[in-house]
């Protein structure tokens, strides 16, 4: 049985089948991006073991396909099994051995990148210090309470758990929450005085000023799915009310968009008033302690902080064409006694503590001055522990091919000379 398995897994036929399936998957996954959007297509076709049903040219076809994980894993198994079975410790095969090791490294490197790399964003205004970055896609329902005068305890419920619905409990949280409604994408509607509105979702907190409506899930790169949930809170001593928690209330980027939209319709002062209401803090009291809660972008905390000293956004005069984006940041790491200033600008990221900070977006310069905003900057924060593996893999593959070629060349020349 084992011998049969080894024979199957080490066969060249399997390699060819897997490579063919890989080509088909890449083709279908690429076409599907037009209908499903880049992120969902990547997730469904390449980051899953199986693809249950494909989409092509607007048609849904109930065709199961092996996913990227399955094909990649089987390719590695196939390569390793073939290696073990046919391995010969001889200098004649050194190049081939190296080439295969390089390919294995590429495959493993891609898998580990996929599993362990993380991209988040750090958005701050001039003078603001932050020790966390946040996801641009995912949200968490965070309950925050004072731990001591200088720190606070956070219990963060991931969006996927909220989406699962039902009752959610944590031993670190003295309250139970029950998800009554969950919308992956939503929009806020101000309960304007001159409009007739249906009864509010609940009279507590933000829901007394805003209605929220479910929207179809978006797959485009330009739009973002902003979730909203209606939750019921209860402690051991009784119910704590029904509340609406929405990504619109705790996502600075979306709040900024709402502010701009209202400012155009109603003027700046009114827009600010409405945004203050939308982002109002919601909290409940349990056993004498205040627990505030918000559906905020998922945060990743760092053991150091970055302060934005100056955001420079210059454009060519009379145009909106950017000339330079530049963030002067201060890096403070109390554990290492580090305190230094550094410039982050286009093509010159800051590499620190295993993270890379790229200049991503900016609201500064003339535009910020006109709208009265404090200049702000957004850095893309990338953690990719295996970022070197593709480079190493390619070098090894190239070296292997060169060595193998040279072995053949030297052998060929030797044979000619001998003849």
């Amino acid at each position, binding site marked *: 049985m084992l011998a049969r398995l080894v024979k199957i897994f080490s066969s060249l036929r399997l390699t060819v089948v897997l490579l063919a399936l890989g080509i088909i998957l890449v083709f279908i996954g690429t076409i599907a991006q037009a209908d499903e959007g880049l992120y969902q297509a990547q997730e469904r076709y390449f*980051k899953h073991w199986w693809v249950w049903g494909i989409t092509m040219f607007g048609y849904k076809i109930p065709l199961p396909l092996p996913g990227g*994980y399955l094909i990649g894993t089987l390719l590695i198994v196939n390569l390793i099994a073939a290696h073990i079975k046919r391995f010969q410790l001889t200098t004649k095969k050194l190049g081939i051995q190296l080439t295969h090791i390089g390919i294995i490294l590429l495959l493993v490197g891609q898998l580990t990148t996929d599993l362990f790399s993380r991209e988040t964003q750090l958005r701050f205004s001039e003078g603001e210090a932050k020790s966390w970055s946040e996801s641009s896609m995912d949200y968490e329902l965070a309950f925050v309470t004072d731990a001591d005068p200088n720190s606070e305890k956070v219990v963060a419920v991931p969006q996927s758990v909220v989406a699962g619905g039902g009752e959610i409990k944590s031993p670190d949280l003295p309250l139970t929450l029950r998800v009554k409604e969950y919308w992956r994408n939503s929009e806020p509607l101000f309960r304007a*005085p001159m409009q*007739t509105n249906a009864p509010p979702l609940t009279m507590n907190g933000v829901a007394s000023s805003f209605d929220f409506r479910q929207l179809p899930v978006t797959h485009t790169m330009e739009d973002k799915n902003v979730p909203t949930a209606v939750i019921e809170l209860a402690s051991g001593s009784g119910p704590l009310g029904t509340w609406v928690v929405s990504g619109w209330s705790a996502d600075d980027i979306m709040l900024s968009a709402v502010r701009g939209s209202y400012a155009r319709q*109603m003027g700046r002062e009114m827009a600010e008033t409405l945004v203050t209401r939308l982002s109002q803090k919601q909290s409940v009291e349990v056993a004498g302690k205040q627990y505030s809660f918000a559906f905020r972008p998922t945060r990743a905390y760092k053991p150091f902080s970055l302060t934005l000293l100056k955001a420079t956004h210059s454009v060519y*005069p*009379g145009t909106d064409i950017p000339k330079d984006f530049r963030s002067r940041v201060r890096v403070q790491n109390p554990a290492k006694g580090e305190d230094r200033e550094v410039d982050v600008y286009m093509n010159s990221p800051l590499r620190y503590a295993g993270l890379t900070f790229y200049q991503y977006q900016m609201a500064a310069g003339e535009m910020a001055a*006109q709208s009265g*905003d404090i200049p702000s900057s957004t850095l893309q924060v990338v953690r990719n522990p295996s970022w070197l593996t593709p480079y190493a893999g390619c070098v090894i593959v190239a070296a292997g091919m060169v060595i193998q070629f040279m072995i053949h060349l030297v052998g060929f020349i030797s044979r000619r000379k001998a003849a």
Partner: protein
Amino acid sequence: MNFVLWCRRCSLSVNGPAKSLLLVAVVATVAGCGREDIQVYTVPKEQVKAAVAQSPVPSMTPPKPRPQVTWTLPKGWQETGAGQMSVASFSIQGEGNTEAQVTITPLTQLAGRDAEIVNMWREQVGLEALNREEALKQFEKVEVGGEPGNLFQIEGKPDGQSAPARIITAMVHRPDASWFYKLSGDGEVVAAQKPVFIEFLKSVRLKEAPMAASAPVPVDAGADAGPASGFKPNWTVPAQWKEQAAGQMQIARFAVPERSGAKAEVSVSVFPNDTGGTLANVNRWRRQIGLPEVNESELSSLVTPLDPANPGAILVDMTSSSKKMLGAVVPRNGSYWFYKLQGDTGAVAPEKEAFVAFAKSKP
């Protein structure tokens, strides 16, 4: 060695000689499992956020009041609204698919950099930079809204574009900013529109914005906080109306007498501006009682003056199959008071006289 993997949906235990082969698969399963768990951690308190939360607009420096721009729209031009940097823009259609655009953009810190400005524009259309003397020779005098300005013209072929582009720019350095009026686009359309553009420049008027435009409007506090804030107008409410708890952004709400089951209520709100203009407000109200929207020409038949003593005050009376609405917009001291009597026709109609008197009375 024993690999055990657990998450909320699956568990996997692998032991024995196959472990090395399965390691990769096990690691990959972590991602395939797909369900994250609740995280608990302690972090330093957010100092900045806390400071922001204490006051609604602490981080905002008041915007500099910009002059308001008016103009006479030339024939064939179409207003396309303000852009990210521009305060106004216009589109001009030429023959075929050709077109040109006009933008009005105020920019600061550019006074005295005329030569640099010319070169920046030249760079846009792929022309080489000129020395200062040559650059300043490009200017011709032009009148912009009664003020002297400079105009220069550039023609070239921008990178990546097949058609040549022409840019005519007029600029006036003022104390608040340098104002740029740019006509750009298809070379032929721009050339043909140059005389029109120069006439347009003459018609432009910059009116200094009142400081109140950027300062908080006094009634805003009342409108924001509602009756709970203690903002109580000193008005005479018809005796038959019963005061109700005001809703969000309202300063007052009243129930009018019920008549044979027909109900209606009056609401009053105050905004620092007219929230989009009469047409937008009337159409929003029409939608609320199930009526189709009207256009600008139909609007005049719906709107009547409310108060001869306050020429800007308007009254709108609209009736659908079963609902009726009386709406009044009254400008007072730089703010806009919105009155609305809405409900069943049987309850609204008898209250019209009282509603009009109430809306006219000075709070």
